[in-house]
């Protein structure tokens, strides 16, 4: 899908409520006063206040926004940061499969994800949660423990189920967002415009997987830990008061790379690929292995599958 067609044109051009007009009105003298009052700072703060939703930005506007955000990020983190906006690839729908018979619960994925995606270190935010469950009980969330910490894993009689954003085909989080700050891209990744999110956390309440996380405090991210390769809709540094979540490492996968959690997994339990390509690994798994989706009864239709490889 091309950059242009992936984003709906400005709402005005679709004959809907002319949101552009409201904003343009604000852009006048009133806005100058209101912007300065609300943000308490100068030109940049006002630009941020007046910024449109990512999907409504023209190419030029987006470049300006990105330039401003890169400057801000460099000032905050003392490091040059690239904020990309690679569009979805045509004919690609991302899918993920995780082999429950192989995962040993070592949490390498959790920490590789943190390293890649620039979440706050304190207060701590992690996009992947590994649940230790009892083999006798099967997938039973009441008997799941995310805080296990033995000397060695796997522990006798237990299996491990990492949970992250399931990239639902029918995402309840998108449905409830009152402002359209989160949506599903044509390649199947549900993304968030952190500059449009108002922090109401309806999406967190709607997500049955606990996959969304809120920046309750000002995020801390030491300069040496910042990953400077980012995407606007993915791992760029987030402000306080917005929701964030796994994006299948959008900054990597849209360039053809595997997500960071796939690259790190020492057991090779994590599989990733294009659901639309009949020759992909992911399709082989769906067609030949015993596969299930988590909480399938909710009809969220995840594109994250769990399977038993042996």
């Amino acid at each position: 899908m091309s950059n242009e067609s992936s984003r709906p044109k400005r709402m005005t051009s679709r004959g809907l409520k002319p949101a552009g007009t409201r904003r343009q009105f604000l852009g006048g003298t009133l806005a100058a006063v209101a912007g300065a009052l609300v943000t308490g700072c100068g030109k940049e703060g006002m630009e941020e206040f007046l910024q449109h939703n990512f999907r409504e930005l023209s190419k030029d506007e987006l470049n300006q926004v990105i330039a401003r955000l890169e400057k801000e990020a460099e000032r905050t983190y003392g490091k040059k940061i690239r904020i990309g906006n690679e569009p979805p690839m045509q004919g690609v729908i991302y899918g993920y499969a995780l082999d429950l018979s192989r995962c040993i619960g070592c949490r390498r994925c959790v920490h590789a994800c943190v390293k890649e995606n620039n979440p706050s270190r304190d207060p701590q935010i992690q996009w992947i949660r590994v649940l230790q469950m009892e083999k006798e009980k099967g997938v039973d969330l009441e008997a799941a423990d995310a805080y296990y910490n033995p000397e060695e894993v796997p522990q006798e009689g237990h299996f491990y189920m990492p949970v992250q954003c399931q990239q639902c085909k029918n995402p309840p989080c998108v449905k409830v967002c009152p402002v359209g700050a989160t949506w599903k891209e044509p390649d199947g990744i549900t993304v968030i415009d952190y500059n449009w999110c108002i922090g109401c956390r309806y999406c967190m309440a709607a997500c049955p997987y606990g996959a969304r996380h809120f920046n309750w405090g000002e995020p801390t991210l030491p300069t040496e830990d910042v990953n400077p390769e980012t995407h606007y809709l993915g791992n760029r540094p987030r402000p306080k008061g917005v929701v964030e979540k796994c994006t299948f490492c959008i900054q990597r996968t849209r360039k053809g790379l595997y997500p960071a959690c796939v690259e790190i997994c020492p057991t090779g339990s994590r599989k990733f690929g294009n659901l639309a390509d009949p020759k992909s690994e992911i399709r082989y798994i769906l067609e030949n292995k015993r596969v299930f989706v988590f909480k399938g009864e909710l009809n969220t239709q995840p594109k994250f599958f769990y399977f038993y490889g042996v």
Partner: protein
Amino acid sequence: MSLPPFRSLPLLLAGLVAMGSVLAAAPPPSPVVDPQDIQVPKPPFTEGIFPCTSCHDPKTMPANTKRRPLEGMHADIELRHGPESRWCLDCHDAGNRDRLHLVGGEKIEFTASYLLCGQCHGDKLRDWRVGVHGKRTGMWNGPKLYLLCVSCHNPHSPRFKPLKPMPPPVPPDQIRARRTRP
């Protein structure tokens, strides 16, 4: 003029035989992936041990093919893989120590050791070839690196070793939101 049946029969038989040989000669759909397509990392040799022929030179050190417990060199290797009777030269080639050999005697490079493993673990080899068993890194839509069986499973003692888990998440009651940047 048509041939009498007894004269056409040998022709028919010959035709059938010819057809059969053509069928037999046509290669069955081969599961073997072109080795060019499989990029594997360097096998995980002990530092400085390869090439093996730097010690196992057939001129200075003729192969001793007698099954015996090893003393001195390689005594650290504890073989815990398959039946008791298994030993070094079942896989390592006595004639050329820089190669392994398949059960049929065919010599293979260490980088193709998956063929050797697949002789017994055929189901795993099948899954490895399609990217289900084992690990691939690189590009989901381009060149990949396939880890060898021996990258994760020590061939002398193949069970996957337990790992120390990385730190658990901070429990919610210990998370404090900060008002400002420190």
